[in-house]
């Protein structure tokens, strides 16, 4: 067994496999399938200070090797999370991170403050990249000053590990990455979904109620991999890579591109056991290549 442990700022992960926010519920939904303590950690759904109903149905469209979603951060609010859901998550021994979102900087800060009080939460993932909300969300992640503003405001109130999740819907992701690093991010995760659209040719209507939605799945992997590579050349803080990871080979590619850990998103829908298979697959790969630790792979692309 190779050494799969990796470090994201103050969080020591026993293995580099996390799950992506919005694709793993609150973890409990997977209890029937496998012991989720096997994971390096998991990231719960996008949480906002106020409860959100999310967008109207239909919220999903299947695309070639991918899917569009327009969930729109449906959640019961940070307070509900803290009092009703958090207690159920304390049974897990692995790392739990909360994905934090908002429409204004004040909302981000208020939400992060509530999460800051929850002992067993290892860190937050600041979502400045949600393409499915009318206000805030992605807007923060598409310009350097606004990204820096929200990151530094949250930095003041949040004491533990703060991962900032970047939007791929930008001209130069390395610039935004540097702005987030400069404003106090401890780590960066990328990519969130890419803004896309689906049309039903028969009904001549958009498939999604919101017209556009966020693209995820293997279709986006080449773009995600490129962005992780670009960001890894631009910043010093650890990167968490995601976007279209379906199997261990995909995960290895992200490590080589510079990711210190990875997240599995859409793959959970297709195979709820994808994450455990990926953990085993990474171990097999390392053994087969006689690499003793995952850290020897991170950023080690041969050019």
């Amino acid at each position, binding site marked *: 067994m190779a050494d799969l442990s990796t470090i994201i700022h103050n969080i020591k992960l026993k293995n580099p496999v996390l799950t992506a926010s*919005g694709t*793993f519920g609150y973890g409990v939904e*997977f209890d029937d399938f496998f012991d989720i303590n096997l994971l390096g950690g998991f990231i719960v759904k996008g949480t906002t200070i106020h409860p959100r109903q*999310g967008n109207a149905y239909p919220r999903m*469209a*299947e695309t070639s090797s991918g899917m569009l979603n327009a969930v729109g951060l449906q959640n019961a609010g940070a307070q509900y999370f803290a009092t009703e859901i958090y207690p159920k998550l304390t049974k897990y021994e692995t790392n739990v991170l909360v994905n934090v979102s908002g429409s204004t900087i004040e909302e981000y800060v208020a939400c992060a403050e509530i999460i800051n009080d929850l002992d067993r939460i290892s860190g937050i993932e600041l979502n400045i990249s949600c393409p499915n909300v009318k206000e805030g969300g992605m807007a923060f992640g598409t310009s350097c000053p606004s990204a820096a503003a929200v990151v530094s405001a949250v930095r003041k109130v949040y004491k533990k590990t703060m991962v900032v999740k970047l939007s791929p819907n930008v001209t130069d992701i390395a610039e935004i990455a540097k702005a987030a690093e400069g404003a106090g991010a401890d780590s960066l995760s990328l990519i969130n979904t890419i803004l896309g659209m689906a049309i039903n040719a028969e009904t001549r209507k958009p498939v999604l109620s919101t017209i556009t939605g966020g693209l995820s799945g293997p279709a986006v992997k080449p773009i995600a991999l490129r962005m992780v590579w670009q960001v890894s050349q631009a910043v010093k803080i650890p990167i968490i890579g995601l976007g279209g990871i379906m199997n261990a080979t995909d995960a290895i590619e992200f490590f080589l591109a510079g990711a210190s850990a990875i997240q599995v998103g859409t793959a959970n*829908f297709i195979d*709820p056991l994808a994450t455990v298979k990926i953990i085993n697959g990474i171990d097999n790969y390392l053994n087969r290549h006689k690499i003793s630790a995952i850290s020897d792979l991170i950023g080690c692309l041969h050019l």
Partner: protein
Amino acid sequence: MKKSVQNLKVIANVKLNNDHHLLQLHTPDQLENIVPGQFANILADQSQSIFLRRPFSIHAVDYQKNIISILIKEVGEGTRSLSHTPVNSSLNVIFPLGNGFSLPSSSEKVLLVGGGCGVAPLLHLAQVLSKDFNDIYILLGARSAVDLVELNQYAIYGKVFTTTEDGSHGEKGFVTEHSIFGVKLDSFSRIYCCGPEPMMKAVASKAKANSVSCEVSLENTMACGFGVCLCCVTETLQGHKCVCTDGPVFNINQLKWQI
């Protein structure tokens, strides 16, 4: 039964008519209790156009032989591929999913109404209801006689009535035009309904008018099928609910339907 991901062996694949296939899937493990109305989320051969799983109601369960049956209507690439799964190959299935119909605690007179491919969960429902001496009426509607599949199966468990749009079998018209709805509907204590949404709304409206309890099984576009993606919501009086976990079965009083 706890939900799980399993590779189930296809032990039979029967073509029922032009576009309906009946698949029997065998599991080596002992099947535990599956509630009628629960569904399975099945992985078809992945191709450029099939990325996600496809949900199907559990059509019948054989606890002795550890077999679940699925009734598939071909409507697109996924159902086409699944319909043609060769016998002895295996399918990757997540099941059982969803809540299922609520069952009477004592013997009741119940009406099951199904239309189109919506009939699928009703066979399993009839199967289970018939064990508790309920008085079961089953009304099945279709476009034409050829589209009415497995009538003899339903007849094992209850009294079967039919409507067809072209009058080629049973009464002519839509299910809600059947004479059952003409007479006293409140002789039934429950209606279970499954089919295209307009049909379910029409049935729900009759049920409501007659103050008969009515449950409907909804469809929705699903990405996961087990409550983590939040893609499959329907509007209820308690806000957005997931069809895959809070449903697919809803009491019509929970829904925001204009009926």
